[in-house]
């Protein structure tokens, strides 16, 4: 059960910890440097692993599915926000690729034990947790952790391993993962969540309760230390002072609520309106006001100087005095606006419950908002809901619903499958009220009817969430600095043009908020760490290669262009607000066709075209797919 650990001082070869839970076996896999240059870590490594090792017939809950938890070259360096992890697997929501990120201390700690990634296969006969530390890696009995939520597991393991704070990083999937709630997440270090595409359900199916990493003593080797220090300063200075990122530096994603309502992109009551309620003072939802509404202290991730993550104390109501992780925008959305809850204290408490139970807050918001709307319309009865009177904005009722879902109790068993499957189960008018993609995923916590590029990206992307993401340094990719977000010609151009950049960032082992820098600068940092001569062009090729692998993985699993659609409600036309009457549905097919052409994918089969595959170095895959 125990793996062998070696301590290297300089230039150690990239090393992955392989874990077979069925056999209880752990072993090291080293990679030649040249091969690693093409993988980097995170999304790049994950895409390669699932493409090579997870055949189409291996479902998300099959023991042979792989769960990749990887960091990247930036981890453990002085660059800001370099404690993150990327989780890649076949996800439970779409049945296709999942690639989702969380921050905290995981990456830094993993690196300090001499590893760059963990690849988990098999399924344990009994509940176990994986511990990695200075004296090796081992699987340990986790029977005492059953039923414990994510924060409790972290506290229990702090006691058991006699370490706390940044000395121990713990990621687990909570009761939701244990009960294979399809949209279970992986959460760690008190509030950091890899939430997309049911990665926690995969962890639960493997009977892996947690991964705990005690800080090790392997020094991080860097090719050019002074150069890296200088670049760390350049990047952090940019993030602090750039007009586009300065507010994230000061307040994280807190200002986004007030920002999005003006853009018609705040999802209010399950996409039924885009109008701010007259009885809710806008001032209490301003970013600074949200932070100041609760006593708080900083809770930043490894080596991060952003004034972003905080611990807060609920100020009023029945939960006053309880400590919660300050919600991200997604929490304010999923536990607030989407379900009609406009009291920040109530939303913050519900968000904390969601994190601890360990479900994706976006899916929870769409599911609960849908159930509230259906209840109002008489499509879901109180009896069906286990006696819960599920009214708009009632966070306590939503908390009860969460408990039902997490325990898969009564109708909670249906809801635990996510909003698409629950709506299909009810059918009729209820189906038309649900927000989801035809692939089975849900959007982030925005109203994408006011952000067409995000709807296109979410519905067409291969990872169960946004794949291209928001524009960063668009000039580098020949894209305009700004587009009209309702422009059916510009939207596919931007989404296709950005494809791959996010995969590169998600392979570095850093946070997307701290890598909002030109690709060229990120490559300089990568070169200072590795001694390579990476260029922006190679980074983009790398990103496109990763996108091709994810897409080919999905298409061969039966997830093709016929699923490139939003649900009826998701793709509907806003009835009020800034986007009133602007109908994405009228342009959808043309936008999809343009995206396929610009991205280099075949619109009939969905596969990347052979020219694209060859241009990113996937010659064998081009041969395999196209002959």
């Amino acid at each position, binding site marked *: 059960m125990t793996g062998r650990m070696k301590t290297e001082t300089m230039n150690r070869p990239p090393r992955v910890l392989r874990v077979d839970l069925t056999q209880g076996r752990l072993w090291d896999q080293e990679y030649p440097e040249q091969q690693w240059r093409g993988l980097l870590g995170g999304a790049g490594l994950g895409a390669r692993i699932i493409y090579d090792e997870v055949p189409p017939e291996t479902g998300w809950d099959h023991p042979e599915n792989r769960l990749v938890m990887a960091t990247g070259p930036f981890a453990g360096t002085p660059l800001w926000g370099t404690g993150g992890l990327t989780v890649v697997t076949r996800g439970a929501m779409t049945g296709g690729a999942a690639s989702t990120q969380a921050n905290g201390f995981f990456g830094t700690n993993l690196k300090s034990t001499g590893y760059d990634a963990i690849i988990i296969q098999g399924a344990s006969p009994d509940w176990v947790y994986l511990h990695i530390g200075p004296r090796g890696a081992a699987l340990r009995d986790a029977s005492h952790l059953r039923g414990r939520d994510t924060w409790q597991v972290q506290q229990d393991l702090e006691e058991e391993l006699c370490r706390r704070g940044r000395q121990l990083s713990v990621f687990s999937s909570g009761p939701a993962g244990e009960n294979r709630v399809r949209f279970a997440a992986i959460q760690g270090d008190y509030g950091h969540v890899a939430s997309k595409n049911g990665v926690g359900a995969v962890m639960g199916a493997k009977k892996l309760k947690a991964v705990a990493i005690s800080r090790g003593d392997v020094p991080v080797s860097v090719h050019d230390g002074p150069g890296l220090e200088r670049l760390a300063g350049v990047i952090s200075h940019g993030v602090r002072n750039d007009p586009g990122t300065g507010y994230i530096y000061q307040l994280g994603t807190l200002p986004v609520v007030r920002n999005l309502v003006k853009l018609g992109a705040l999802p209010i009551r399950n996409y039924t309106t885009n109008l701010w309620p007259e009885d809710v003072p806008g001032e209490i939802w301003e970013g600074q006001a949200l932070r100041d509404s609760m006593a708080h202290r900083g809770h930043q991730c490894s080596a991060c100087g952003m004034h972003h993550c905080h611990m807060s104390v609920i100020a009023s109501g029945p939960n006053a005095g309880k400590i919660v992780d300050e919600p991200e*925008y997604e929490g304010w959305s999923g536990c607030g606006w989407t379900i009609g809850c406009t009291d920040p204290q109530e939303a913050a408490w519900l968000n904390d419950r969601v994190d601890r139970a360990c479900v994706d807050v976006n899916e929870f918001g769409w599911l609960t908002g849908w159930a509230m709307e259906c209840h109002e319309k008489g499509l879901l009865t109180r009896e069906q809901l286990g006696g819960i009177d599920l009214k708009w904005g009632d966070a306590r009722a939503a908390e009860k619903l969460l408990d039902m879902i997490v325990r898969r109790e009564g109708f909670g068993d249906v809801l635990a499958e996510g909003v698409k499957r629950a709506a299909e189960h009810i059918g009729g008018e209820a189906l038309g009220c649900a927000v989801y993609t035809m692939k089975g995923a849900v959007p982030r916590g925005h109203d994408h009817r006011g952000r067409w590029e995000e709807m296109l990206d979410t519905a067409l992307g291969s990872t169960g969430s946004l794949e291209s993401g928001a524009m960063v340094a668009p000039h580098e990719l020949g894209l305009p600095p700004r587009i009209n977000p309702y422009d059916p010609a510009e939207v596919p151009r931007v989404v296709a043009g950005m494809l791959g950049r996010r995969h590169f960032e998600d392979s570095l082992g850093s946070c997307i908020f701290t890598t909002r820098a030109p690709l060229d600068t990120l490559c300089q940092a990568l070169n200072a760490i590795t001694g390579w001569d990476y260029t922006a062009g190679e980074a983009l090729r790398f990103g496109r290669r990763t996108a091709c692998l994810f897409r080919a993985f999905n298409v061969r699993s039966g997830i093709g262009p016929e699923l490139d659609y939003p649900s009826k409600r998701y793709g509907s036309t806003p009835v009020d607000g800034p986007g009133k009457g602007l109908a994405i549905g009228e342009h959808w097919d043309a936008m999809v066709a343009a995206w396929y052409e610009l991205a280099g994918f075949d619109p009939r089969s969905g596969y990347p075209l052979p020219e694209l595959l060859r241009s990113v170095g996937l010659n064998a895959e081009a041969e395999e797919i196209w002959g």
Partner: protein
Amino acid sequence: MSDDTLSKGGTPQETGRLRVVVEMDSWVSSLAGATGPLEFTETLPPGASIRQALEKISSRHPRLARALWDQRGSGGLGPNLEVIVNDAVLGVRRELDSPLRENDRIILTGQYVGG
């Protein structure tokens, strides 16, 4: 805030001027040296365009100007801020060079960057 803010005044016909309301959220107003959300009236020559209004406002605040305009010389807006005129994002019903009308409302907010 603005040296052109009108505290009183007649109709546009009486003054020969055009007045529009400008709103900035907290983040944008901080680029103009203020704390918290900001709303003020801007006075412009009759027939002034949205571009002219934005140029006038940003000329008083270099940090706002840097955030608002494309720094690569395209003459258009940059990637950082979004401009909304009467509840519609620029480009939907009006362009940068469209004329303003009396009492139009210009909202400056941060460009969405993810979250």
